[in-house]
């Protein structure tokens, strides 16, 4: 009998803090002996080995029993948990967008190369796990007061997003803002050559590979384009973090639209913006493709100009009204 109790108490003791171990084990031993005596008195005979084992099982698994003596603190408590959950959803969306956007680009430009898409998608899993792990560490640190997070208490109703008609012109949700931030950050990474473009400067088509050479105007406009992207990220971040800051976002959007219009004005006379080289293509075929690309870029530039003009009007109106 005592061998079973010793083994049980030994397993519990191994999990207890050293300072209180002896004390708790002595008390548990007393509890177990009392229980055994009580049961033996009821049955009118000593308990056998199987019955003692059953009694110890009733007291609980050593890990559970030792755990009850530990500090009663959840890794993330009920007050922080909803914020952790919201943060994890946002981070998973960021990880998903960061994987899906390059995968989409690869799908469009790397005809038939499924490995590229597969590789980009599998990048999502370690990124997501790392982000969720980081969020959990931060939330646990906040729970323990190691990181002060008074922002959870000092929030303002006026900074919450307005309830508006979702079909309103240029109405944007927080998710749109998040998409904008991730997509633009990926663009910035690619533009500054921190991140490699999924397919380099080569597009794979049904007719073979086509190499792209960009016009030198892009070198000239390197900083303005980078500035526009950074401003766009700021605008997206305002929408995600402080959706109530309508005027601030409208102001940033107006700056972005003005830079966009200036860039479009500089690009228009510099056509063709992209020159194609395809050694496997016929001269006529290549010329035809080049014409199509030029026309597409001209149309895209016209659309960009129209959108930026419209943004100037809409965001100007928002800047005045504040809503």
């Amino acid at each position, binding site marked *: 009998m005592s061998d079973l109790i010793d083994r049980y108490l030994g397993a519990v003791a191994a999990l207890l803090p050293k300072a209180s171990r002896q004390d*708790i084990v*002595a*008390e548990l031993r*007393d*509890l177990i002996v009392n229980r055994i005596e009580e049961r033996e008195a009821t049955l009118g005979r000593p308990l056998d080995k199987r019955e003692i084992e059953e009694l110890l099982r009733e007291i*609980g698994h050593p890990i559970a029993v030792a755990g*009850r*003596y530990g500090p009663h603190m959840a890794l993330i408590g009920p007050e922080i948990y909803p914020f952790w959950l919201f943060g994890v959803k946002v981070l998973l969306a960021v990880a998903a967008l960061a994987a899906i956007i390059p995968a989409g680009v690869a799908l469009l430009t790397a005809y038939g190369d499924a490995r590229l898409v597969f590789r980009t998608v599998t990048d999502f899993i370690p990124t997501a796990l790392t982000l969720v792990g980081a969020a959990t560490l931060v939330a646990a640190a906040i729970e323990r007061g190691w990181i002060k997070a008074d922002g959870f208490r000092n929030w303002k109703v006026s900074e919450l997003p307005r309830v508006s008609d979702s079909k309103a012109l240029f109405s944007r949700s927080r998710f749109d803002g998040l998409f904008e931030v991730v997509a633009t950050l990926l663009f910035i990474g690619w533009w500054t050559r921190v991140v490699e473009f999924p397919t380099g400067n080569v597009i794979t088509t049904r007719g073979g590979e086509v190499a792209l050479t960009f016009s030198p105007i892009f070198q000239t406009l390197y900083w303005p384009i980078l500035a526009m992207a950074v401003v766009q990220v700021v605008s997206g971040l305002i929408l995600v973090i402080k959706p109530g800051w309508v005027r601030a976002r409208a102001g940033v959007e107006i700056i972005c639209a003005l830079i966009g219009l200036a860039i479009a004005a500089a690009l228009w006379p510099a056509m063709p913006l992209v020159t194609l080289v395809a050694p496997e293509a016929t001269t006529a075929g290549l010329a035809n493709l080049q014409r199509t690309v030029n026309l597409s870029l001209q149309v895209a530039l016209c659309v960009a100009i129209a959108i930026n003009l419209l943004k100037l009007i809409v965001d100007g109106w928002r800047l005045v009204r504040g809503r």
Partner: protein
Amino acid sequence: MPTDTDIFESLRQELRRGTLILAVLAQLREERYGYSLRQALSSVGVEIDEGALYPMLRRLEAQGLLASEWREEDKRKKRFYQLSSEGRAVLARLADEWRAINAALEPLLEPAPSDGHHKG
């Protein structure tokens, strides 16, 4: 999906959690060791799992509400617990709180008057 019984059981546990501390503190106006405390509670109809009781006693002691000492009884060393002076003060305040809650809830828990208020 939780059944009605599961839901009831979880709500019952939640309701009991705070009242158990009150019962333990009240029983420890007199000195007792863990096992005798559980028996005393059981005799007045308050059942408590030992697995929860012993850690609870240690927490209450760490909070300064209980005092304890090891003594020999029936040829075995036992740890005896009793309310500290701080514990007595806290128990008095908690008891007032309990009575106030009880007084507020009791009329609410009265069966609703029969259909007299319903229209036609």
